């Protein structure tokens, strides 16, 4: 029997045993909030603390979450039994129903079932993907890499203008051939397309990868596997704003929500290539500044106070500069210097000069 399936069964059996003994059914779930996230100075990663939240069935405040967690456990078991996968959205619809004779819904919004799934990961110590639940695919990759996925051989160098789109579950992929010196990861799909059109990955012998906005788990796993299995350094290219810094932070140190999966997701060697305050001066990007809004400034302050940034001199310098400018800049601002400036000048220079921060 599949291990995840066995774990779910044991989990159910244990609860039933307790009920038989007249004990109140309850779950103990580690708290997933900033208050229970610890930054480990040694490993430089976020780890989950030991604060546990009790979820009892016979408690008005807990009952809904308790039932939701059991509901997604049931759904995961069914998926594993059938050997089928479902998306987060699918799971939401499988759980969404009105309790008979009431106007209470088991779940009202997808965020509730998503949260229940993350709780289930903590309780079972199996990841969502192992429970046959996937997110939407998101992101593209190109480079001299050949992989095998579900029996198909795929060459990342021959995927046309769109590149290979990264699925949400990359655990079953086998790397057949990897010819690259490093991976360049960027938060903007538009920049990825620019680099792809210029065949940047061919010229520089690298892999280029992007998502749109926050990095999905599938991409983080793919990056992690390439970095571990093929020892490839990872360079990150983000907008010059608080959110760009946080995208890097999630890749490098881990995220608050998924602190329980830190080991399989964080990229300890990831380097922040740009855009930095140095770039702003050096490449004259000030004329492309966009003024920071109040929410941006608040977020900047919040990020700069995170434990994993608090004592980081390079980053504190960045945050101070951004605050002093009172402005942000997009990666695309580089295009003002010429359409191929980023591929011909900016990136090669930055990498050659080791002009990055960590």
């Amino acid at each position: 029997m599949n291990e995840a399936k066995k774990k779910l069964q044991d989990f159910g059996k244990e609860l039933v045993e307790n009920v038989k003994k007249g004990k109140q059914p309850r779950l103990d779930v580690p708290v997933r909030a900033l208050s229970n996230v610890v930054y480990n100075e040694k490993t430089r990663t976020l780890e989950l603390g030991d604060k546990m939240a009790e979820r009892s069935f016979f408690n008005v405040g807990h009952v809904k979450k308790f039932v939701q967690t059991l509901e997604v456990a049931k759904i995961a078991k069914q998926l594993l039994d059938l050997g089928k996968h479902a998306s987060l959205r699918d799971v939401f619809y499988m759980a969404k129903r009105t309790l008979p004779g009431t106007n209470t819904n088991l779940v009202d919004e997808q965020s509730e079932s998503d949260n229940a799934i993350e709780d289930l990961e903590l309780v079972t110590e199996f990841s969502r993907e192992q429970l046959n639940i996937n997110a939407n695919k998101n992101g593209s990759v190109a480079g001299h890499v050949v992989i095998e996925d579900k029996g198909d051989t795929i060459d990342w160098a021959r995927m046309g203008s769109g590149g290979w789109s990264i699925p949400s579950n990359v655990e079953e992929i086998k790397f057949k051939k990897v010819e690259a010196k490093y991976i360049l990861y960027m938060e903007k799909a538009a920049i990825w397309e620019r680099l792809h059109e210029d065949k940047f990955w061919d010229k520089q012998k690298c892999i280029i990868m992007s998502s749109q906005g926050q990095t999905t788990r599938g991409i983080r796993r793919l990056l992690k596997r390439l970095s571990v299995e093929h020892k490839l350094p990872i360079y990150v290219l983000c907008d010059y704003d608080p959110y760009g810094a946080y995208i890097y932070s999630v890749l490098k140190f881990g995220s608050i929500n998924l602190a329980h999966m830190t080991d399989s997701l964080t990229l300890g060697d990831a380097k922040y290539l740009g855009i930095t305050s140095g770039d702003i001066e050096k490449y004259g990007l000030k004329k492309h500044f966009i003024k920071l809004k109040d929410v941006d400034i608040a977020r900047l302050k919040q990020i700069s106070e995170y434990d994993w940034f608090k004592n980081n001199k390079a980053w504190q310098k960045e945050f101070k500069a951004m605050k002093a400018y009172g402005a942000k800049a997009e990666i695309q601002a580089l295009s003002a210097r010429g359409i191929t400036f980023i591929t011909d000048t900016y990136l090669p220079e930055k990498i050659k000069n080791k002009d990055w921060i960590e």
Partner: protein
Amino acid sequence: MANPIAEKLAEKQRAVSVAEFFERNRHLLGFDNKRKALLTVVKEAVDNSLDACEEARILPEVQVQIIEMGPERFRIIVEDNGPGIVRKQIPNVFARLLYGSKFHSMKQGRGQQGIGISAAVLYAQLTTGRPARITSRIDPKHPAHYFELHLNTIKNEPEIVKDEEVSWKKEHGTKIELDIEASYQKGDQSVDSYLKETAIVNPHCTIIYTNPKAEQLIFPRATDKLPKEPTEIKPHPYGVELGIMLKMIKSTDSRTLQSFLMNEFSRVGSQTAKEVCSNSGLQTDMKPRELELAHVEKLMEGIKKTKIIAPPTDCIVPIGEELLEKGLRKEVAAEFYTAVTRSPEVYRGIPFVVEVALAYGGQQPGDQAVRVLRFANRVPLLYQQSACSAFKSVLQTNWKPYGMQQSGSNAPVGPLTIIVHLASVWPPFTSEAKEAIAHYPEIIKEMKLALQEAGRRLGAYVNKKRRVGLERERVNIFERYIPEVADSLSMLSGENKKAIETQLAQMLAKNKEFIQANAAKTADREESDDDIKLTGSAERDEE
């Protein structure tokens, strides 16, 4: 030399007949469309009947019958047990516009101008050509008189078609029969709801109504107590406008300005009268008839400058909290009732009283705007809701604390009927059709205070109900979740679902008290493990 244009114009200038006047102003009198015409005719007849009964201290019993005679043609019969009308007066009362006892009186009553019932007679005549048929008897010793009347539209005088003595089983009372062009429809602004609402605010009267579908509705009285007779008061100086002042000066018998002020106004004694005169720069012994316009203007100014105590308010007869609640109780099925009668107040020198009543719950729909029923001197106001200060006051009141839903300054939503009643010797209407109460700040303020007072009582009830419901809900919530949990657990473990369900149900039964005791505590710190919510949209890692 003659002016040819003026002469030409003079040929066209002539008196306007009342028929023409009526045609042009029918919207002011409540005859704008056929559906409304039916309501207006019934309303005028019923208002007259109720006023007559009350004045004669008779418990009213009014029969209303509407018969469909053909397409858009109805016969309306309204019969009361009132004091009747002496033979000589019958033609004038029913077939002469602006004839009545009420126009000059400062006394709380339903009618005002003496225009209503004659306008109905005229409308019948203009639309069907049939005369009004009146039967009236003043006591058993006198015979009943039967009249058929037309209204001479050029002279504004009654034309008697038939005048005879008839035998009638009623000892006293009046019956009017009119044929009119109209249309009948049920619903919010129908005769049916007008009579129902009339029954609510007139709990001392019985109404027997037969509608065109031949359905008989009986609204029985809820009390044998007649409302106290309203007393007539003299106008208060603050409430008199220049035109009326001129009229009063012309018709007074007083010989001096001082005695005129003392005799014709309320709250003016010799001291106040002297003060008014000196503030106006007029002699106290001037003869009223010799006052010129300039003098009267000075007098108006002088009145404004003089402090005069508010008019007496005992002339107002409110329905009273007890009877208003009784009336509401018998006509609106609900679970909670309350009524508020405010103390008398004054607007522009005219005393008034505001009353509010609420009926909550029952079968009333909870997802629609509340029903607002507006009344002035016990008469339902069915049209022009949004122009009325009663409705405006409802909107300006915050109903959320009282358990209703309300967004912005919209009408509150909930299973609620709100009654707003204005009693006054002279309720200010926005137009002659008497459909909406005018926006005097003093009146709106009183209405809001009354709504708030009633609302607080409602809020106490709704919140208590909610608390009791929540406690029950807390136990129920587990009962409802048990099958879900049992299903999940059975699916995960492979154990029997029924067995798990039974065991959980037993645990619930054992722990019921414990759960209830702890429910309040835990509900307060619900979800407390998620106390730190991070701001910023980028916090979640994935979609």
